[in-house]
């Protein structure tokens, strides 16, 4: 294990642990961002420069910001003594058991040998693939994102029967 990897792993796991354990929801969102930045750095060390930057652009720039924005919009639901699940001990036990199982399976499995030539992740290569073999998934993702955009706007819209909304046609703009 190399030192940079150990540091990054500590950053990722520490951030993730803090994100799921801390009581303040805003801190949880910020720790999530920290953890995902660490993960993006791991991606960079895996020679996936493009993916690492996209990861930060989408997760830190959009998802983390959306999460803290949603926390701000729903202020007032702050419950200082959040109830944990029915049996938090069981949840922790299950998580540890899953990790132990995965670790056992991973260490005992044999993986195919890595190829000698590490291919570089070029943007041109990614674009080429997207436009040839993966053009149908690409279209599907476009449709999904459009549907999610419209759906999110519709869901988050206040109910139309709300009498508090003022009439807009006298807007002196």
């Amino acid at each position, binding site marked *: 294990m190399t030192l940079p990897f150990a540091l990054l792993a500590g950053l990722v796991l520490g951030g993730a642990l803090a994100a799921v*354990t801390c009581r303040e929801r805003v801190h949880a969102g910020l720790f999530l961002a920290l953890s995902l930045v660490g993960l993006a750095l791991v991606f960079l060390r895996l020679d996936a420069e493009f993916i690492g930057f996209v990861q930060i652009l989408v997760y830190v720039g959009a*998802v983390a910001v959306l999460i803290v924005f949603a926390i701000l919009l729903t202020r007032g639901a702050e419950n200082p003594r959040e109830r944990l699940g029915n049996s938090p001990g069981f949840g922790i036990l299950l998580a540890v058991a899953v990790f132990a199982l995965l670790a056992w399976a991973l260490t005992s499995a044999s993986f195919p040998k890595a*190829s000698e030539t590490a*291919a570089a992740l070029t943007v041109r290569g990614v674009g080429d693939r997207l436009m040839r073999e993966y053009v149908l998934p690409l279209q599907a993702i476009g449709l999904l994102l459009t549907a999610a955009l419209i759906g999110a706007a519709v869901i988050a819209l206040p109910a139309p029967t709300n009498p508090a909304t003022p009439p807009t046609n006298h807007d002196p703009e």
Partner: protein
Amino acid sequence: MSPLLLHLLLAAALFSIGLGGALIRRNAIVVLISIELMLNAANLNFLAFWRYGPEPEALNGPLFVLFAIAVAAAEAAVGLALIIAIYRRYQTHQLEDISRLKG
């Protein structure tokens, strides 16, 4: 330990943390954060297998991660919109309080 195994173990640990968070916490937003962590653990696996796998020329791992990031962004947007709508209706974030459909 090989670098592949190290990355896979890191992903497994990240996944377990996310799983634990999703099981224990009852706050909708924290549960969403936990789900994001689990998704990212899967992404790390894809990239590790691509980088240290037998045929890195195929670029299948990174492309899958790209698609997964796009889906995760859509999921976060819809999930947070749902949380805001639920908050408007029930004034709560606690998943246990939203139990109207329970018999």
